[in-house]
């Protein structure tokens, strides 16, 4: 019960994933630490970004060489603030020869890195028409999720809190609300700061979580990757097991009857 191999495969478009923990590759001290953390996390899907080659160091080791071979690479459109930019980065990713899976980010604010909902919806429609498998980073909005689904999105990635903030999932009920309104997978992305946050997302009904900063900048990234994996599995099984309802008053766990006469 404590391995990804024992839970159902998650299908996103035509891609199938064993692991419910997706991991970002940014901010690691070294590629070797990153590789060890990816292995420890048990992930099968890792995000990457597209940026200019440093022409002064053209033979820098490429990140793709440090990604375990079991992983699918998910390019993002991070840093794009318009529909046109995001579409072109998606095209570039596809031209790089790693398939047509894309994590769509169309941002609306450079301080919050908050998604632009209208641009995200527009770019989703466009990229779906072009045959991309679109995983859309969105604000945690059930109505927007429904619009994205109707646009043909393949996975909805609501943020928990701002990217890299580690604030956790500020309104976990939104995860449940989105999950109950769409049929496509829901992946909580952004803001997860600790294993507790990852477990909470899974308990709330997320199909998977995406974690980057919380692993990469942990004091021990490899240990944190292990912990995140355990948390995702705990949250998954916790949801399957069916938690008790919350009550206002106490319910004794020990029998009320048969209490011995004790005391004066």
């Amino acid at each position, binding site marked *: 019960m404590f391995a990804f191999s024992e839970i159902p495969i998650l299908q996103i478009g035509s891609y199938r994933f064993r692991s419910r923990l997706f991991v970002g590759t940014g901010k690691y001290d070294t590629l070797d630490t990153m590789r060890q953390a990816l292995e420890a996390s048990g992930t099968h899907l890792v995000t*990457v970004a597209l940026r200019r080659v440093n*022409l002064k160091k053209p033979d820098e080791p490429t*990140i793709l060489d440090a990604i375990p071979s079991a992983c699918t690479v998910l390019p993002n459109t991070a840093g794009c603030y318009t529909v046109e930019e995001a579409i072109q980065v998606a095209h570039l990713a596809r031209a790089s020869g790693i398939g047509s899976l894309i994590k769509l980010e169309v941002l609306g604010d450079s301080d919050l890195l908050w998604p632009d909902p209208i641009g995200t919806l527009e770019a989703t429609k466009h990229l779906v028409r072009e045959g991309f498998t679109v995983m859309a980073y969105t604000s945690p909005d059930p109505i927007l999720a429904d619009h994205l689904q109707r646009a043909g999105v393949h996975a909805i990635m609501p943020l928990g809190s701002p990217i890299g903030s580690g604030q956790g999932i500020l309104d976990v009920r939104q995860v449940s609300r989105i999950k109950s309104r769409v049929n496509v997978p829901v992946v909580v992305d*952004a803001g997860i700061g600790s294993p507790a946050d990852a477990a909470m997302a899974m308990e709330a009904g997320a199909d998977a979580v995406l974690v980057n900063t919380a692993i990469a900048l942990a004091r021990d990234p490899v240990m944190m990757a292990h912990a995140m994996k355990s948390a995702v599995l705990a949250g998954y099984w916790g949801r399957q097991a069916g938690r008790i309802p919350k009550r206002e008053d106490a319910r004794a766990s020990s029998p009320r009857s048969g209490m011995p006469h004790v005391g004066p």
Partner: protein
Amino acid sequence: MKLTVNGEFTHMPDIATVGDLLDHFGVQHQAVAVIANGNIVARDVFRQFTVQTGDTIEIIRFVGGG
């Protein structure tokens, strides 16, 4: 010839194709994507795609990201 490569204005020896440009900078072809004057250049035509003076070229690769 004069090119703008990754945002930097560059004087460089005459070259004919995107493939030559990558070779000039010592960039491995299989690790990058290229945009020439706003258009994506498919990897399999790097060796045929002509570069002319004044062109703006972006050479892109995958890096760590979330």
